[in-house]
């Protein structure tokens, strides 16, 4: 017999209660797409916050005399056809973009997750009804439902937010129900039922925490889609209404001057691209970081 294995007395103690996510930030900072995505997203968020406190010029004041100026020390990116400062417009536009994104994703997340959880928990005809209804909603593109809503309620930010939000619901319903069904099939749910827990408590305490990371990732992706949808709706004149600046509107305004001053279309286009790219990279990064299996494969 060999000597019994012993743990040396000076071995570091096991940390009780250490979460599985130990070192999340350390791993996150090493993850390239997460860092880049977070940086770009923070840039957009920072611009929106900054615009609340300060903009180089007012984004609402029209100064026809100095319209379509090229970039200069006074106007870093020049001015638009009404003489408004482009930088200021971009900063304030970020605000509308983020507001629409947050509220629309909020609507989609709240309703979608609730309905998805109910569908997974109740099964039977309840599930069937919820899923068929979300298929029905999914069949209408956001732009189409926004046009319908605008016809009823008039165009505006609220209309576009509502339309985009409703459009987001079915995606969240599907993602939630699919992953919740997988959790319901796990043995610890059976054990929880054997311990006397009802459907509601199991949903809140066991199902939701276990699908949260999937929902977070999905929400970042949906945020990017909402930004694109908002830009598209504003471009069509159905979203944010003048004089409130928005990236989509700036694109629309630039369209007629495309040959005269093409940069007017490039700036808001680039802003939209940065926001969408940032959120997609952030979502990808979060997916890797929150899923230990994927993280290990890298």
């Amino acid at each position, binding site marked *: 017999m060999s000597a019994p294995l012993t743990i040396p007395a000076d071995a570091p103690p096991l940390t*009780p209660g250490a979460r599985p996510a130990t070192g999340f930030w350390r791993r996150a900072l090493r993850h390239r797409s997460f860092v880049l995505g977070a940086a770009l997203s923070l840039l957009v968020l920072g611009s929106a916050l900054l615009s609340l406190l300060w903009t180089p010029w007012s984004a609402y004041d029209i100064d026809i005399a100095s319209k379509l100026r090229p970039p200069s020390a006074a106007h870093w990116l020049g001015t638009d056809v009404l003489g408004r400062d482009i930088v200021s417009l971009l900063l304030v536009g970020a605000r509308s973009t983020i507001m629409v994104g947050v509220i629309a994703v909020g609507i989609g997340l709240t309703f979608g997750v609730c309905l998805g959880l109910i569908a997974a928990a109740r099964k039977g005809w309840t599930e069937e009804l919820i899923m068929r209804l979300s298929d029905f909603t999914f069949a209408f593109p956001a732009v189409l439902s926004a046009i319908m809503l605008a016809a009823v309620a008039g165009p505006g930010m609220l209309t576009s937010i509502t339309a985009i939000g409703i459009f987001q619901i079915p995606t969240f319903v599907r993602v939630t129900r699919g992953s919740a069904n997988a959790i319901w099939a796990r*043995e610890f749910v059976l*054990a929880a039922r*054997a*311990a006397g*827990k009802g459907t509601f408590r199991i949903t809140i305490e066991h199902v939701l925490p276990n699908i949260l990371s999937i929902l977070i990732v999905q929400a970042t992706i949906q945020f990017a889609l909402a930004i694109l949808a908002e830009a598209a709706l504003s471009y069509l004149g159905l979203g944010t209404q003048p004089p409130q600046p928005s990236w989509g509107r700036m694109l629309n305004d630039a369209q007629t001057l495309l040959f005269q001053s093409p940069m007017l279309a490039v700036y808001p286009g680039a802003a939209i691209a940065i926001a969408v790219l940032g959120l997609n990279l952030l979502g990808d990064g979060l997916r890797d970081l929150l899923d230990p299996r994927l993280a290990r494969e890298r």
Partner: protein
Amino acid sequence: MNGSASAPLIEVKDLGVRLNTSRGPAQAVRGVSFSLRRGETLGLVGESGCGKSVTALALMGLLPDSAVVSGSIRLEGSELVGLLDARYCKLRGNRISMIFQEPMTALNPMHTIGRQVAEPLRRHTGCATGEARKQAIALLDRVGLPDAARRVDAYPHQFSGGQRQRITIAMALACQPDVLIADEPTTALDVTIQGQILDLIADLVEERGMSMILISHDLGVIAENVQRMMVMYGGTVVESGETNAVFTRMGHPYTQGLFRARPKLGARKGTRLTTIAGTVPELADLPAGCTFADRCGIVVERCRTALPPAVDVGAGHGVRCIRTDVSMASAPRAGA
């Protein structure tokens, strides 16, 4: 809680379960009857798909909604079949508890073990968080989790399989249930840990005066841990009785086959394990007669016409076979 000692705690009569599978309705359990008094232990033995686990889930009221349960299950006289789920929730984990086969998956990875053990206490006894935590530590200590007080806030992945099974046992016992159902509690564990866990369960059953239903496919586990046993095959009980009586005089060809098929210590190298020829019948397509007829060595035409009745071959020892005269003449004996 005040029933006399002789009144059965749990009484199952003619239990039947029909499951809706993709291949049509399957009669997973047929005509299972037994009763269990306080402090008694019962073993359910049989191979995969014989209806052991379905019987257990029926007792817990945890079968899928599409399953059709017939017959009667009475807990201290009150009927459980058809009970509303909300009322069943008050019994589960409180008066009837269950330990599962896979300790690696029976705990929620997102919650600390202390919280999971304390949960049934908070639910059923309404005790405060701090008090529940104290009791949870005491329970974890009792089931032999080393350093329970310090590790109560750890997560399931920080424990080994054996330790996790101890934790699930603590969860099941939290509210001092009357009936404990252990569904293959040691199948996923190492042999050395198996013994420890079974001893722990046996101690706790005796200490708390619980009744236990132990489900296993391992005859050895059944032989050592329960007073009475039922052998299941194709959804029916083919043999039941006192564990000693069954092992001394095995009446059913299937029980005998199971016993002969066990690996033996000291067998010569290269000796093949004895098997029972054939395969388990499809539950969706059960034969009209004895479910074991197709694999039985002593089958006669009469076996295939109707499900044989249970024949009494000794005190409380029933065998569902019409040819016990032949089968018992050549019965293997435990220890032989």
